[in-house]
């Protein structure tokens, strides 16, 4: 068996982290080499750095449909999510509740759980059940500080109808802040339009092609949060710490390019994603289940570049090993900090039986994906599954 590094790489894990865009790399290097000063200083070098940071802020704001003053740079999506949930709860004081769904990323799920918050169920597509949300908000006797829903699910690609959720929340919990984790969304939907009604929006750089380490929380004018990090008062007191100018500029460049190319790449990747699913179904038959679909033909609500499939009768851990050895990089639904695969809480919330979820595979496409990748992936995955069949699923 070949070493994993021995095969040309087919990268189908863009939802975990997508390769660096040349524009983002160039932007990063230009700043890192030129602007060595701390942008909070007053001398010329500091003012130049400050100008670069403000430029990035304006570009990010334009893509996200925000004012530049509403952009708070963070270390990434997890910090932005934590800042939204914990910042809202902290500002509201004891007794306040956070409400979210059972299909969130851990960066929202865990802070809500730790605060004793309330979880709303999702349907079999992984999308928040609006009636259940309404019931929870009506029944909640505590002050609801924040309601958080994921815009595009990181595991399944399910797209939440954000404006509809906003209407329910504004109607039934008018005092609550409304947050969306849009970390996966920028590639697939027009975040500026879709999140226009949201007080807080999280995004991150490494899902759009800039380096890991920079994210943004959009905090609308007038929205007050307790800061997670206090100190030098940067980001208008909302997030202390010397700003990462190169990271911000690079992120802004990646955001702009992603948004400009979005319509074209959504159309292009949707075709490839469907070829991938259909190719697997052709080879492996009806044991290939599209996790977020009511039927395997029903994919309109799934982000164009994400295919979460469960292949019955195999364990994804063994399948991923064989795929990796053949050069195909992908992931299962979620993995824990040790690197072991744990069954996904998102699939469980959707009602996917545990034994089916153990065969889950998240194949995520992105800006570097080309058609031959898909043909090769179908071949490798099918052969790997057929091999595992001979050993009872591995």
């Amino acid at each position, binding site marked *: 068996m070949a070493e994993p590094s021995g095969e040309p790489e087919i990268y189908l894990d863009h939802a975990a982290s997508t390769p660096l865009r040349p524009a983002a790399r160039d932007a990063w290097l230009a700043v890192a080499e030129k602007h060595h000063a701390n942008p909070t200083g007053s001398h010329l070098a500091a003012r130049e750095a400050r100008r670069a940071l403000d430029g990035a802020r304006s570009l990010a704001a334009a893509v996200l449909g925000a004012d530049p003053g509403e952009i708070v740079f963070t270390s990434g999506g997890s910090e932005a999510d934590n800042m939204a949930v914990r910042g809202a709860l902290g500002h509201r004081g004891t007794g306040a509740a956070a409400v979210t769904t059972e299909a969130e990323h851990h960066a929202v799920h865990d802070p809500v759980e730790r605060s004793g918050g309330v979880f709303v169920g999702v349907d079999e597509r992984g999308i928040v059940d609006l009636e259940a949300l309404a019931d929870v908000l009506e029944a909640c006797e505590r002050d609801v500080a924040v309601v958080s829903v994921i815009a595009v699910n990181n595991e399944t690609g399910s797209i939440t109808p954000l404006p509809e959720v906003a209407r329910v929340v504004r109607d039934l919990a008018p005092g609550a802040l409304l947050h969306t984790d849009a970390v996966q969304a920028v590639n697939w939907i027009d975040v500026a339009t879709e999140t226009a009604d949201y007080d807080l929006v999280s995004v991150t750089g490494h899902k759009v092609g800039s380096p890991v380490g920079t994210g943004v929380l959009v905090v609308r004018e007038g929205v007050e949060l307790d800061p997670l990090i206090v100190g030098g008062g940067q980001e208008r007191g909302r997030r202390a710490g010397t700003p990462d100018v190169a990271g911000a500029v690079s992120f802004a460049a990646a955001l702009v390019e992603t948004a400009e190319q979005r319509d074209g790449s959504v159309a292009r990747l949707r075709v490839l994603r469907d070829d991938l699913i259909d190719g697997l179904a052709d080879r492996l038959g009806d044991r290939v289940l599209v996790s977020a679909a009511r039927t395997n033909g029903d994919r309109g609500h799934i982000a164009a570049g994400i295919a979460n499939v469960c292949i019955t009768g195999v364990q994804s851990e063994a399948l991923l090993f064989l795929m990796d*050895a053949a050069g195909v990089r992908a992931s299962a639904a979620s993995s824990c900090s040790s690197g072991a695969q744990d069954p996904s809480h998102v699939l469980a919330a959707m009602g996917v039986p545990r034994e089916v979820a153990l065969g889950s595979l998240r194949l995520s496409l992105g800006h570097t994906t080309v058609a031959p990748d898909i043909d090769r992936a179908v071949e490798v995955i099918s052969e790997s599954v057929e091999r595992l069949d001979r050993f009872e699923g591995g």
Partner: protein
Amino acid sequence: MRVPKARGRVLVAMSGGVDSSVAAALLLEAGYDIAGVTMKLWGGPSDTGCCSVSDVDDARWVADQLGVEHHVFNFGDDFERDVVEPYVADHAAGRTPNPCVECNRHIKFRRLTHRADALGFELLATGHHARIVTTDEGLRIGRGVDAAKDQSYVLHMLDAGVLDRLLLPVGEMTKEEVRRQAEALGLVTAAKPDSQDVCFITAAAGRRRFLGERIGVRPGRIVDTAGHQVGAVDALELVTVGQRRGLGAVGGGSPRYVLDVDAASATVTVGDRAELDCAVTPLEDWHWANGPMEGPLGVQTSAHGAAAPAVIDADGTAVHWAEPRRAVAPGQSVVAYAGDIVVGGGTAARPVPRPVP
């Protein structure tokens, strides 16, 4: 090191401890194409040196030091079903199970072997202190060189099918040599303490809390051999045959030992030291490595105990001790050796209980 007939890639089970780290290093040095794997078996709390994220990190660091691939497999569901649940059921039935033996039987040498097959590894290796010995009847598991660290007892069930593709490099070394080797190679695990006890039971909270959360513990009455109640225990499931401490003041005078645990009637029978001795221990699930062996064998009934001379019925129903000895707690593994070689193994059964008057 024994050179197996099979050739190919070796999957090395790396726990993050020093033994399996050195096993991997030795195999690499011997020219094998290896990859490391750490099995994630237990997701709950553990403070006994197993299965934590930091153990996985240690194994990964050693693999990085050696320049080999490292993987993590989650066999948590298998471990729960094949090790933890039977462990709990045994305690509920008043038995004293040996979960490490079941983990070896079901997880390390069945589940992992199947996974190795599926992923294209012809050979398997672990850091156990035991040897694979070639005999006239085929491959057998034998005692490791370091008597104090010998783990052949917990590997007694391995048959030729597994042994044929298994490598146990540190079985040829003393623990001191293993540590020296780890230091010489600069492995990050060189000074790591040995793991202790059952990995899924925390030393801090113990069996009481674990079993209490799973099944609840029941009070039981303590009776003497005449059937008179002489005390009470608050957790019948924690009582082990042979136990002396933790029974409270029963019957005054001489020390009392647990002779029998009857889960059905929640009764613990105690007696003095002499009454604990027995000449015969009934067995269940006995397996001869290569057919029955007549005459005296060395028979071991605990992981760190010495073997005592005894004869085992050909049909594996009982062990007859040469000298009377302390009763074996039902559920414990019983392993027979001819010299240093395992020739059979099974489980201690409960003697026909004394009628309670």
